[in-house]
């Protein structure tokens, strides 16, 4: 045909087809596909009737038939799917057949239709199908279109008798294997964000496979026979058909939009397809999210029917006769390797059996028979309060929840049969709920089930994480049941629009567990885990985890090690089950680092104990209340968050107030101090507020020694605004008459030392040389210097045990300074002549002194500054 041959049937086909395509969205998809197929039928008939074809090939001398195959054969011709035809000849393909192809097929190509055609003789057809299984399947859907009907009938007769009759088992085995391979390759479309409408699990091919098996094994003629022959109930077939029509509709619109054959529903098409199908926003959900949820639900239904059908009519037809096993319930029996109800009526009397069959399935590792699933689906409504709180039911459910992975996912069966939703009605709101972004690749219901499954894989040979830490924590966890509940419910809040799904989820968790009469203590724990399931991952990625406050903050909210362990495991399982963008080595490293730091803070509990937290909060309030005016309150309020946890714990509220005052006096100066007299002991307390600088502590200690002010004890804190607050208890100057003047001299010395004008080391060497030997009063233990790098994630802790001598503190702190260490926290105490000094240090870059060499060098340097013991 040439382009201007307007009388060729192809021209007519093109015109009517365009009219049909223009209005296909106004009719049900199956109606459209039937009409679409009919157009091609008409075309092939016209071609055969046309004089020109008859002139080329006389049907009486060379009998031939045109048969429709594949989707076209089933009258399911989608917009741009291939049109598969067989040009069948009787004895041999005549040479002139080529001309026939030119007359019938080429014109279709010219109008842009993809035609797949085969030209074969009857014998060729059968011999080739005998040799190649993949050529058998198209013949299953073959339908006579035009030409010699007797010829086509003969083909079908021999095909059924010889091929299907004699090679049935082989064909079925090949079909089963191809089916399994396809699922593996294309994955599960019932929750993919970009599902494959045809090849994926839950796609159209699942339906085709059912139909083929039905045709081969059960003698079905068409899809309708599923119901007529009793393989699907009336309701099931209705829903099955509805699901197919929806998927076909999506596929047609996708083809139309892409202008070509395309079965993968890519992101860029989804919004348009959703809009064209009239999905509208509802309850905070976007049209595309509702569209995908609906599509997933349909594909999920196809998938389940597919598996139930396979299970019932295993194409390989094998029946491994396992020894019949008894169950714990008379009404539940094992038959043909599947669990079923003995008599369905027993359910009416004992609806708890609906739960028990799942419990038995988990215990015995035997799947449910399709008939049992059908019964559960239809009688699930019997499961309601108070039955769901029946201890036996709850226990059976927990057995399912705890059943080890991965062999068998009974929880998924519970979801698929709608039974989980009966037990926890709130679950309904998250079934097929989509979050339309590239981060969450599973619908919420699938995601939470995956999270449960991921947890259970930890510590086993198929653990998804290689880090021994997480695997070990799970293995040693005593409260697995509670954690699994939290995993199951952690995203339940996503079904209920609110500002925080975690907080909403925690409230719902309480309602759900109360319904099950759970102990209050467990409810608190599980609700806590649900409420805070994002805390660790958010903190790890959005806060400075190298800051001690971050770890302290987490530790205080989590409160104890058990809860921390559980939260960490939940975070890992949750992230792993979200999608590849939510979990990788990078995130894992950040999260683990945070976990270890928080665990460490908890282990050395003084900062996080319940009492410490309560005291700190009370003190903050008291300090704020002590402020007289509103302006004063504002000034104090601005400083409070900058105070370090250690400072807040060890300082009384009135002292905090005076310290803040002192800080305000500092202004732009380098330091201020305040001296008070302790009336009971006669000692002086010197509070120094200074801008932190390396060596500050040594300079203060040196100044005091230079002025013969003997240091009894000292504490230093560093606030978060780089202000150091140092508190010294000292003996008053020997000559109390001129005390004021003495202090003034000391103040001048310190000012000079801080701005570098005074070299304290030199001054002290000249004025008061350190003793070369000392004589301890009581014990004679040697000096001891301990460098502890384990107790804190943020500081190296240096402990010095020695004996008092003039300038002892200056000697030690100078050694620390010269080793390049900054003192962040210090506690100095002297008891008679024994000195115990504890320093929390970091190097000038803010890092711990982790390596053993530097630690040993520091010990040696401090020791060198201490006098020999006599």
């Amino acid at each position, binding site marked *: 045909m040439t382009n201007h041959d307007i009388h060729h049937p192809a021209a007519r086909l093109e015109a009517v087809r365009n009219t049909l395509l223009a209005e296909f969205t106004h009719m049900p998809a199956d109606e459209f596909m039937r009409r679409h197929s009919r157009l091609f039928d008409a075309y092939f008939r016209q071609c055969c009737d046309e004089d020109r074809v008859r002139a080329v090939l006389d049907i009486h001398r060379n009998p031939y038939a045109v048969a429709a195959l594949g989707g076209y054969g089933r009258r399911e011709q989608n917009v741009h799917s291939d049109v598969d035809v067989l040009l069948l000849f009787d004895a041999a393909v005549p040479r002139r057949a080529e001309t026939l192809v030119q007359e019938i097929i080429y014109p279709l190509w010219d109008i842009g239709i993809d035609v797949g055609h085969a030209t074969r003789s009857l014998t060729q057809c059968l011999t080739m199908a005998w040799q190649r299984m993949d050529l058998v399947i198209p013949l299953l859907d073959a339908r006579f279109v035009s030409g010699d009907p007797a010829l086509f009938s003969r083909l079908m007769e021999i095909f059924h008798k010889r091929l299907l009759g004699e090679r049935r088992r082989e064909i079925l085995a090949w079909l089963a294997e191809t089916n399994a391979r396809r699922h593996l390759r294309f994955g599960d479309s019932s929750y993919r964000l970009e599902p494959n409408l045809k090849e994926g699990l839950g796609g159209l091919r699942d339906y085709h496979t059912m139909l083929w098996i039905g045709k081969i094994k059960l003698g079905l003629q068409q899809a309708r026979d599923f119901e007529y022959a009793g393989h699907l109930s009336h309701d099931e077939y209705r829903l099955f058909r509805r699901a197919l029509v929806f998927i076909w509709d999506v596929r047609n619109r996708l083809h139309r939009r892409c202008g070509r054959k395309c079965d993968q529903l890519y992101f860029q098409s989804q919004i348009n397809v959703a809009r064209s199908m009239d999905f509208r926003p509802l309850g905070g959900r976007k049209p595309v999210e509702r569209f995908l949820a609906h599509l997933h639900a349909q594909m999920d239904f196809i998938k389940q029917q597919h598996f139930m059908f396979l299970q019932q009519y295993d194409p390989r037809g094998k029946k491994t006769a396992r020894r019949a096993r008894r169950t714990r319930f008379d009404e539940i029996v094992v038959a043909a390797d599947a669990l079923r109800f003995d008599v369905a009526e027993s359910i009416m009397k004992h609806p708890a059996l609906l739960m028990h069959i799942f419990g038995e399935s988990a215990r015995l590792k035997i799947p449910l028979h399709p008939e049992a699933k059908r019964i559960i689906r239809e009688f699930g409504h019997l499961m309601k309060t108070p039955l769901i709180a029946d201890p036996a039911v709850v226990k059976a459910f927990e057995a399912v929840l705890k059943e080890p992975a991965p062999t068998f996912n009974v929880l998924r069966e519970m979801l698929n049969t709608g039974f989980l939703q009966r037990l926890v009605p709130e679950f309904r709101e998250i079934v097929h709920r989509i979050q339309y972004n590239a981060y969450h690749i599973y619908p919420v219901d699938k995601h939470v089930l995956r999270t449960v499954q991921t947890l259970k894989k930890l510590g086993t040979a198929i653990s998804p994480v290689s880090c021994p830490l997480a695997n070990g924590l799970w293995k040693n966890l005593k409260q697995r049941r509670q954690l699994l509940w939290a995993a199951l419910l952690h995203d339940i809040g996503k079904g209920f629009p609110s500002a925080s799904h975690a907080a909403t989820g925690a409230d719902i968790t309480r309602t759900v567990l109360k319904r099950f009469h759970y102990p209050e203590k467990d409810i608190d724990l599980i609700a806590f885990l649900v409420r805070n399931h994002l805390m660790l991952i958010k903190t790890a990625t959005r806060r400075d985890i190298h800051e001690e406050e971050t770890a302290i903050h987490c530790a205080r909210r989590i409160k104890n090690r058990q809860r921390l362990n559980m939260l960490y495991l939940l975070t890992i399982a949750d992230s792993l089950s979200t999608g590849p963008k939510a979990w990788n080595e990078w*995130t894992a490293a950040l999260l683990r680092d945070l976990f270890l730091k928080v665990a460490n803070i908890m282990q050395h509990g003084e900062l996080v104990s319940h009492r410490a937290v309560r005291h700190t909060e009370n003190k903050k309030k008291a300090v704020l209340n002590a402020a007289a005016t509103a302006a004063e309150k504002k000034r104090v309020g601005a400083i409070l968050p900058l105070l370090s946890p250690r400072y807040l714990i060890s300082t009384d509220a009135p002292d905090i107030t005076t310290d803040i005052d002192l800080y305000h006096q500092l202004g732009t100066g380098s330091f201020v101090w305040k001296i008070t007299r302790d009336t009971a002991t006669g000692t002086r307390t010197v509070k120094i507020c200074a801008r932190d600088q390396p060596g500050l502590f040594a300079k203060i200690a040196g100044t005091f020694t230079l002025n013969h002010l003997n240091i009894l004890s000292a504490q230093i804190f560093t606030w978060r605004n780089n202000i150091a607050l140092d508190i010294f208890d000292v003996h008053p100057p020997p000559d109390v008459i001129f005390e004021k003047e003495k202090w003034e001299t000391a103040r001048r010395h310190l000012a000079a030392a801080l701005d570098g004008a005074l070299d304290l080391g030199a001054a002290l060497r000249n004025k008061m040389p350190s003793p070369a030997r000392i004589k301890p009063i009581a014990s004679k233990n040697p000096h001891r210097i301990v460098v502890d790098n384990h107790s804190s994630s943020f500081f190296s802790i240096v402990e010095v045990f020695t004996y008092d001598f003039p300038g002892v503190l200056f000697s030690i702190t100078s050694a620390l300074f010269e080793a390049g260490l900054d003192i962040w926290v210090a506690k100095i105490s002297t008891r008679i002549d024994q000195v115990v000094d504890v320093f929390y240090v970091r190097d000038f870059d803010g890092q711990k002194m982790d390596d053993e060499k530097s630690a040993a060098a520091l010990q040696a340097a401090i020791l060198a500054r201490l006098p020999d013991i006599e």
Partner: protein
Amino acid sequence: MKFQTRRMYMKKIEAIIKPFKLDDVKEALTDIGIQGMTVSEVKGYGRQKGHKEIYRGAEYVVDFIPKIKIEIVVDTSRVEEVAAKICEAANTGKIGDGKIFVLSVDQAIRVRTGETGSDAI
């Protein structure tokens, strides 16, 4: 497509920053009209060394510290402004705040349109 050696008028800015500073930096750059950047999750160490944590007697070594790398190509005239913005936004005053590298870029081509040079960035 012709590749010509021209006067270098584009620079690539590579910044390594702390992970939790990404949002701040992105916001700061958006404020001054930077429209695109490439972000990657990287690991490494510099003056901020790795460290180890002890948990129940077991030692966990963090030898490469997780960081974020941002890459932006800008007109040479904007380099200082952009680098300053990143510095300001990523600064915590502590070790490990990161580094900024500025590299010369010979050419940029927008794949869709074939536009080159400044038009393509």
